[in-house]
């Protein structure tokens, strides 16, 4: 009976949760884990985590493969820790812990790592929504889900976000709109992405997301055949270079930054 109960939960929540369930169930199978020590600060732990990560990655590993393995180990440990803190007993810190977990997820630049860890993302985001449906932090983190989920899960992610688009919590609804638009754009479904961005601009005109949405819309409107916007800028020696001065040549404009 007990085994079945655990198995049902494990299937529902995903395998990431298995370890947590196993440890909490060992002492008290049917109640939530009891709060750990008070003075938990997710922000402090996150700061310490990034210091640790910087150390590992600047230590000068003998080869890239080793670096990847070590940095993967640090990241996995970090993710497990923040996952654990989502049950620390303090609602504010728990909400932040989900955010920190998502941030680490988005921080896995290495494609191989994203693919493997990205599969864990969906169940955690579902759990986050269930426990903190009004969280502002959640709204801001939803794009991280679309960035890291494997391609095979894109449809599932889109459905999940669609459900959240109607959320009564403005931050969550806005974040879901932006994340959906980003994923649709990535899937080359710009016709579906644009209306979502337009809705963000209309409903929340003063938000940070609306500012970006306006830019995204402008970028999307630069489709083949459209006249490239005129510009006149100075080079490092102070000479003026305009788009008009490039007429007659095919030009590749590369917006970049060293900073």
């Amino acid at each position, binding site marked *: 009976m007990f085994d079945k109960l655990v198995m049902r939960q494990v299937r529902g929540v995903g395998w990431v949760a298995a370890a947590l369930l196993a440890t909490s169930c060992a002492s008290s199978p049917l109640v939530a884990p009891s709060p750990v020590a008070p003075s938990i600060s997710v922000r402090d732990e996150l700061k310490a985590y990034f210091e640790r990560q910087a150390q590992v990655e600047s230590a000068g590993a003998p080869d890239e493969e080793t670096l990847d393995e070590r940095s993967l180990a640090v990241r996995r440990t970090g993710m497990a820790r923040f996952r654990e803190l989502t049950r620390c007993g303090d609602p504010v810190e728990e909400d932040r812990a989900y955010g920190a977990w998502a941030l680490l997820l988005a921080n896995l630049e290495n494609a191989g790592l994203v693919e493997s860890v990205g599969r864990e993302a969906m169940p955690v985001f579902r759990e986050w929504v269930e426990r903190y449906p009004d969280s502002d932090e959640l709204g801001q983190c939803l794009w991280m889900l679309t960035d890291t989920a494997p391609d095979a899960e894109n449809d599932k992610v889109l459905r999940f976000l669609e459900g959240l688009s109607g959320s009564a919590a403005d931050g969550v609804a806005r974040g879901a709109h932006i994340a959906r638009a980003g994923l649709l754009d990535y899937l080359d479904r710009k016709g579906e992405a644009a209306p979502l961005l337009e809705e963000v601009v209309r409903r929340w005109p003063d938000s940070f997301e609306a500012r970006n949405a306006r830019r995204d819309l402008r970028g999307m409107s630069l489709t*083949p055949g459209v006249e490239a916007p005129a510009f006149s800028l100075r080079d490092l020696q102070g000479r003026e270079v305009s788009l008009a001065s490039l*007429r007659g040549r*095919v030009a590749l404009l590369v*917006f970049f930054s060293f900073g």
Partner: protein
Amino acid sequence: MKFQDALREKGLAVVGIHSAVSDELGLNALGSSVAEFGIQFPVLLSDKATEEAYGVTGIPTRVLVDRQGRVLFREVGFSKEMAPELERRIREATK
């Protein structure tokens, strides 16, 4: 390198548009980076209006423009998979 030489011959103008720098110090640092990375193409200093007009929300953003000043192709971000596509577009445009 061969590909780049061929492109120059065919008249491709590569123009870097770097995010604005706030002062002399930033300008010097940028000059050093350009030299250090051996960047051969002109580097312009961006402004907000240009970034708005081109809808730059991520870096790098690349826009390929034809001889008449029309957009041919635009892409944001970078991955190994993207490079051949851009190369193909450039070859087509400079034919």
